[in-house]
């Protein structure tokens, strides 16, 4: 029975997709409401499942076998869903945030000519995302992984006529392909070693290997480095999907899509798929300390670089995009230092405050006639009180202001980084936390406070609060951003305890294989907590001084003083340009060489084969002269062949 409800979760968005995709023209606005209803239904089931998991009423894990998908040789993949605590957790927030974004889109997309197309894509996206989360085996997860990639591509390029939008879509797609290549290779390697792609079985293999329970583990069949390479390949997949160095540059460009899409796909759900994958396969990653270190270092660098870029961007959505990349860095940092639960908890809190920030930005953009440059906004607090207050709460949360959700999750990550002995990474993390506070409040002050700088007088008078369909989700998300942290307070409702069975094996492996132990010191923890609190508050005041009190002179002055650092940040570390020159140039060269090879070698061989085939074809046709006698003759030759073979062969 519960299987039915679980299947219903991804099925409802699929219904929304089909209805809007096929009958959009007839349904019109009703199609949107249908989609909201479907997603709401999913969210309801997701919430019930989550409550069941928190209170331990549900016996987990549940496996729902739907059908045998492919059975070829040794490979047997069944299309099954696997629901454990982690799945419940993911289902809960994905469906919850999605349904809010769906509702918000009712207001945001109103009157858009592609209204139903938009909801069809959103439905397909949620279907794929939920398949990704629910998949029992890696191929099924991969189906979802590709599906969300496709929807992301479609939605980034949604405004087809907008300059840059189709290109941004292509960029995202190509970057993700590189990552998907890693995912695929990792799957092949995994299958070659253990002969299964079912996630629970893989985790079990990893556990046995890690704890040396049996002599010859299949995972070590090809040597110790095998697991390291394999996990690095998985991580390559994650860098694509979750926008980490070196594949992060697509995410800021993806902001060309409609803002609800940025909130849902490029902040709250899809981009966290990489973190989900790492936590799912935590035991496997725990086997490869080198990979873990690589993840931690790359994640910390990504967090820092993206955070620094966010400081100087002028487009409100670009700031939020780089902020997302930076926060994703935090999540991977947690995974890299072995604090998987902290990582997934940050995914959770981040989805609330980042969705709230993006939807708030969308509300502003909606009201200000698609003006996204913060330098041309300002003072919107009076006209849009709900948007302003929710945005403020979300900013506090992301900055890590005490007792709001971001404080708990980020602090946990920093503490785990410190306690596991990664002091340098901790320093980078603290630095990033400071920048986070500064850039988020920079957005707040520039957009909502000070003078209104909208040039067009008509537009300025026209600024208005958004309809309830938009402010309602904002309020709910802001409440979530404020209180979601409580869920991980000891004794109140502990996500850590709930998710423990999922990552228990990974923790065991890490403990089993490492010599030095993590630091456990309550006073130290509180001390560090104080430091990060001070950092957050300092950041907020810094932002206030720079961007509210002394704007624009003080930041300009500062930028001139910092010189290179400012240029580095403003030009996004020239990352895109480096790619264009080096990677683009290199591939151009390879392409030219390939053309030559293709023209002379491949085509030559092909033309020869084609010539021979055509010759054969002429011969066959020549025998086919239309005379029945000739046909019968051929027939008799065949009979002769058969009889001779039967009598004389072997």
């Amino acid at each position: 029975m519960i299987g039915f409800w679980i299947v219903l979760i991804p099925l409802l968005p699929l219904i929304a997709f089909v209805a809007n995709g096929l009958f959009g023209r007839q349904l019109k606005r009703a199609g949107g409401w249908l989609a909201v209803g479907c997603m709401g239904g999913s969210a309801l089931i997701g919430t019930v499942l989550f409550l069941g998991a928190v209170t331990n009423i549900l016996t987990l894990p549940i496996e729902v076998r739907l059908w045998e998908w492919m059975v070829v040789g040794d490979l047997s993949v069944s299309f099954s869903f696997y629901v454990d605590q982690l799945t419940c957790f993911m289902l809960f927030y994905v469906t919850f945030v999605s349904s809010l974004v769906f509702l918000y889109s009712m207001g945001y997309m109103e009157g858009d000519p592609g209204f139903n197309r938009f909801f069809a894509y959103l439905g397909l996206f949620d279907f794929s995302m939920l398949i990704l989360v629910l998949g029992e085996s890696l191929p099924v997860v991969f189906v979802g992984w590709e599906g969300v990639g496709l929807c992301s591509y479609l939605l980034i390029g949604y405004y087809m006529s907008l300059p840059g939008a189709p290109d941004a879509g292509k960029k995202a797609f190509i970057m993700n392909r590189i990552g998907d290549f890693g995912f695929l290779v990792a799957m092949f390697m995994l299958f070659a070693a253990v002969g299964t792609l079912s996630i629970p079985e893989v985790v079990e293999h990893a556990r046995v290997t890690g704890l040396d329970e049996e002599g010859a583990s299949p995972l070590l069949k090809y040597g110790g480095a095998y697991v390291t390479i394999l996990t690095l390949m998985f991580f390559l997949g994650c860098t694509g999907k979750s926008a980490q160095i070196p594949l992060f540059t697509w995410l800021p460009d993806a902001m060309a899509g409609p803002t609800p899409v940025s909130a849902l796909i490029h902040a709250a759900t899809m981009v966290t798929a990489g973190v989900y994958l790492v936590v799912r396969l935590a035991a496997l990653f725990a086997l490869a300390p080198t990979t873990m270190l690589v993840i931690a270092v790359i994640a910390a660098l990504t967090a820092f670089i993206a955070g620094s870029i966010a400081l100087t961007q002028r487009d409100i959505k670009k700031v939020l995009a780089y902020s997302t990349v930076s926060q994703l860095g935090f999540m991977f940092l947690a995974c890299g230092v072995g604090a998987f639960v902290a990582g997934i908890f940050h995914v959770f809190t981040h989805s609330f405050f980042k969705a709230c920030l993006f939807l708030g930005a969308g509300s502003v953009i909606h009201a200000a006639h698609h003006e996204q440059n913060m330098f041309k906004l300002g003072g919107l607090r009076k006209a849009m009180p709900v948007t302003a207050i929710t945005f403020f709460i979300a900013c506090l949360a992301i900055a890590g202001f005490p007792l709001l959700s971001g404080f708990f999750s980020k602090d946990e990550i920093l503490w785990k980084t410190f306690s596991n002995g990664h002091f340098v990474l901790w320093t980078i993390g603290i630095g990033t936390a400071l920048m986070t506070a500064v850039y988020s409040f920079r957005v707040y002050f520039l957009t909502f406070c000070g003078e209104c700088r909208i040039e067009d007088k008509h537009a300025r008078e026209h600024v208005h609060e958004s309809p309830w369909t938009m402010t309602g989700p904002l309020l709910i998300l802001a409440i979530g951003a404020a209180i979601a942290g409580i869920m991980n307070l000891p004794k109140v409702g502990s996500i850590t305890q709930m998710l423990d069975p999922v990552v228990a094996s990974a923790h065991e492996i890490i403990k089993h294989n490492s010599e030095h132990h993590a630091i456990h010191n309550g006073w130290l923890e509180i001390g560090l907590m104080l430091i990060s609190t001070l950092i957050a508050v300092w950041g907020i005041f810094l932002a206030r001084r720079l961007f509210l009190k002394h704007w624009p002179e003080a930041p300009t002055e500062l930028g001139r003083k910092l010189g290179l650092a400012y240029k580095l940040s403003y030009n996004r570390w020239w990352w895109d340009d480096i790619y264009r020159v080096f990677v683009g140039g290199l591939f151009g060269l390879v392409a030219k060489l390939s053309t030559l090879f293709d023209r002379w070698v491949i085509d030559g061989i092909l033309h020869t084969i084609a010539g021979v085939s055509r010759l054969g074809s002429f011969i066959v046709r020549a025998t086919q002269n239309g005379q029945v006698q000739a046909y019968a003759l051929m027939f008799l030759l065949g009979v002769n062949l058969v009889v001779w073979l039967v009598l004389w062969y072997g």
Partner: protein
Amino acid sequence: MAEQLIPHVIESLIGTGPLLIMIFGAMAVLVADVLLPRDRRPLLSVISLVVVALAFWDLHMVGSPGGSGSESYYFGALRANSLVFLAQNVILGGAFFLILIAPRYLDGKRIPLGEFYALLLIAVTAMLALAASTELLTLFLNIELLSITLYVLVGIENRNSHATEAAFKYFLLGSVAAAFLLFGIAFVFGATGQTRYDRIAEVIAAGGIVQPAFLAIGLGLMLVGFGFKLSLAPFHMYAPDVYEGAPTPIAAAVATGSKVAALGALFHLIELASGWSDAPAGLWAALYAITLISMIVGNVGAIIQPNFLRMMAYSSISHSAYAVVPMVVLLRRPDLLIDARDAVGYYMLAYTIMTLLAFGVATILGRQGEGRIASYAGLGRRAPLLAALMALAMLSLLGIPPAVGFFGKLRLFAVAVEGGHYWLAVIGVLSSVASAYYYLRVIVTMYMQEPAEGAEPAIPTLDRVNAVALSVCSACLFVFAIFQGVYLFGS
């Protein structure tokens, strides 16, 4: 007699319910043809649809023994197992599709509806029975019943000299093939003294074969007969002429239902032969040779065919050859029975879906569809839906994932590899690569070429029934690729 007479007959009657429904349905169509006023004749297609649907329903009421279970009816003459069940499903589904697609085509050609539907239903009955035949004489009778109805159907458009010629060629060569089949049956009977497969198997198992060469030759000559039905080279010569001359829906039936039935019957025979542990290797070699030749002739021959239906004829030669691959393996490795059966069964399904889709579009295009491939130029612009469906069919025939064609070939060649027949798999895959040439040419013509100035053909019209039938058929291309585990319905 092992079985209790009366209960066994009753059980057989119930078990072969679909056959009875079809036969009585065919008669009902004939009667209705006489009774209905001329302007009500189109109702005949509705009656035929109802008959096929009833048979389909009854087939599922009877169900399949499931798994590797097997049931025998009429004292071993017919067999029911999961392969037969699947084949019968495919045949009935295909018939339903063809009856949906055909009416407008038949109107255009002024083909008499009553005869057409009645004969088609009889042919389908013969197919259903043929797929289940496990007794030599039953097998022969069913093949003949099927052949004779098809001869008539091929030539039903009697004002068209091409059709008459095709029917006549089909008939002449079919008679030759029937003679060899009967000859083979006589040898097998002579060597074993039995006509029931299960009894023959008992004789073989008891070591009672005095003249192994007789049995081997008998089986070899039966292969010739099957080679004709499956249009395997070098018994394929009639195929291009028949596909071109026959009404397109009938060409589709010859290409799909008739072949599926023959594949089912051949599989029973090969299953029997594979139990003969000290069989001469020549039997295996003969089937191997036929398969190999067919793959090459089919794919090479299709390359320069300018006519769409002739090209499809050659393509169906190579597809028959692919479907026989697991049987070649089975002769050497009887332990792979289940794998081979599943592979052949899945391929029947896959092949029928994609071939019917291609023929369905050709039927709708009518005169244009039977014509030169060059006349498809610009179809992508004139009739986007039809062109897209045709393109899907071509891609699936070519074996592009994720359509059924890919998984079908994958399963067949996986059996070949598992059974150690690497060369067969390699040549199969290579020849299938070569098929890209002529399948893709259709797509290229539709989308990248424009018809000559002034020769712009009319835009084909697509009524709602046809659109739905074709769409469902194309959806099946993917549905059965995703739900591979449930294709054996009962099991």
